[in-house]
């Protein structure tokens, strides 16, 4: 078991290195840098001598290959570089904001799972019924909603119109509800659809027929034999959605002035603060990989077929 987990952790390394490489090359090869953006930022021309000094200080004059090796070397020891903008270590910038992002992501995913999975289950047990049709229309609608627009509408309804909840900012649980809803609706919709499809697949499986032929009540057939096997199929979707959620949170965080990674990333992009952008992306990718690794491990625990090898 421990060896399997170790193997999954080691498997992440080439991917994260690949991501670092792709992102780094992307920013190095294509013209336009932090400094040139400073120059055409409308703040007037900069003294070429100052530009030259900054380039040297930031190490931008070295050949690309040298910079890549240096960057990867720093990554190994957990150093994401120094922000062009604030001159702080990128790790510190990210550290200040990671907590809020995690809080939002977990709340949104919790909502998505608590609503989406039971909804899909219920719909699958009554295929073609009114509830099934309504749930599936709701699900496809949920997938088509722009998150930030949903957020805006929630903000208008619950904050501006009803005055039940604060419209933006960070604080207690009441600040969390609207952004978590806005972020959670589309994974909820996807989970409802996936769960429904999985349950429908499992409920026609031979072993469910066996269970029925044993003389079990339908409730027991569903809770005992269908549920576990169907949830196994849903797990992959949970992992992929969960992992991607922190990336999707960018827009919602911006909308609700949530002090997470999203705001940092957008501000850094606007100002071409490359180390901060790279660091932010890497952390989001790492989160994705860790969540999916945990899902892999969960499979090993739940599914004896995988456990065996």
């Amino acid at each position, binding site marked *: 078991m421990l060896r399997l987990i170790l193997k999954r952790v080691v498997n992440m390394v080439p991917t994260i290195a690949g991501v670092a490489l792709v992102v780094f090359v992307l920013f190095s090869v294509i013209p336009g840098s932090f400094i040139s953006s400073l120059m055409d930022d409308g703040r007037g021309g900069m003294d070429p001598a100052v530009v030259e000094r900054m380039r040297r200080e930031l190490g931008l004059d070295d050949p690309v290959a040298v910079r890549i090796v240096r960057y990867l070397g720093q990554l190994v020891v957990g150093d994401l570089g120094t922000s062009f903008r604030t001159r702080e270590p990128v790790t510190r910038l990210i550290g200040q904001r990671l907590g809020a992002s995690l809080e939002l992501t977990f709340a949104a995913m919790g909502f998505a799972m608590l609503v989406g999975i039971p909804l899909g289950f219920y719909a699958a047990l009554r295929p073609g019924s009114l509830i099934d049709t309504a749930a599936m229309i709701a699900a496809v609608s949920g997938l088509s909603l722009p998150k930030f627009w949903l957020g805006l509408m929630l903000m208008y309804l619950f904050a501006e119109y009803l005055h039940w909840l604060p419209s933006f900012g960070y604080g207690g649980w009441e600040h969390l509800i609207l952004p978590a809803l806005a972020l959670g609706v589309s994974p909820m919709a996807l989970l409802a659809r996936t769960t429904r499809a999985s349950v429908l697949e499992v409920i026609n*499986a*031979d*072993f469910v*027929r*066996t*269970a*029925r*032929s*044993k*003389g*079990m*009540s*339908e409730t027991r057939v569903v809770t005992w*034999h269908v549920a*576990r*096997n169907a949830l*196994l199929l849903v797990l992959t979707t949970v992992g992929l959605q969960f992992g991607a959620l922190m990336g999707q949170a960018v827009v919602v965080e911006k909308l609700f002035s949530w002090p997470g990674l999203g705001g940092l990333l957008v501000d850094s992009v606007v100002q071409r603060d490359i180390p901060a952008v790279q660091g932010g992306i890497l952390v989001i990718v790492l989160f994705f990989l860790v969540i999916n690794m945990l899902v892999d491990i969960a499979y090993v625990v*739940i*599914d*004896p*077929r995988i456990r*065996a090898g």
Partner: protein
Amino acid sequence: MNPATGDTAVLEISELDIALAGDKGPTQLVDRVGFSIPRGQAFGLVGESGCGKSITALAVMGLLRAPLMRSSGQIMLDGRNIAGASEAEMRKLRGRHVSMIFQEPMTALNPLQPIGRQIAEMFVLHEGATWKEADARAIEALRHVRVPAPERRARDYPHQLSGGMRQRVMIAIALACRPKLLVADEPTTALDVTVQAEIVELMATVCAAQGTAILMISHDLGLVARMCTEIAVMYAGRIVEQGTAGDLLRAPRHPYTQGLIGAVPRLGARAAGGRRKLAEIEGVVPAPASFPGGCRFHPRCSRATGVCHTDVPLAKPRPGGGVVCCHHDG
């Protein structure tokens, strides 16, 4: 009534119709099928795939699900009419009075549960046993179906077992509560030829030992004949011939039965006959929506005449006992 024992039959089906509901009205899949199985005896239902034999088995289990439905007829299980029984009543019968094993041992067991548990479940469901007792009895049940090292095997998952072992587990589950009837739907079709004989022999001995009757469903007439006392041959939703196993095999009266026997390969037959091909029945089983009128076998039958196109042949007694439905039998 069975004249031999003076006892009621364990299963008695009469005039059973099963239909498939569809957009354009129901399609009849099983048409006035009837037979009875005396206590403790093995009965074979033989036919090509799509003839309605598996659906008949599901009807006996009360497991027909929409869009399949029983449109008329009686199914008497142990003296009780289960056609029209409520789901709750059926549930009490399933597993306890009648149980079933399926064709695919690969997929018929829950992949996420140890096999011991899947057997133990029967004792918990039907005999009110605690899980602890049930687990112990499951090991006994495994020993009963001759699974080696049952204590260890009980903790195995289905994917760790061979096809033959899985089917043994299925038998253990099905016979756990000593049902009066075991429905076996192509129990050996998915297995290796060498394992088939073992499984059939195991089923026969265990059932004989505890007095369980068998409804054996197969496309393999030879296999059924070895194990069953009586056989019914089904074609396109109807029983076309029925009789004792030996007699049916020795002197089949219906051209379809004769074709089936011709299609059974006999060891050495090929060597003796040189390059002669195995006899085959021309054509394919028609789809239920386009069952021909009259005798449904007539498009594939060499003896067919005008009457076969128009009139459904009625059941008439065979010389050796049983019935045959053919205008030109012999």
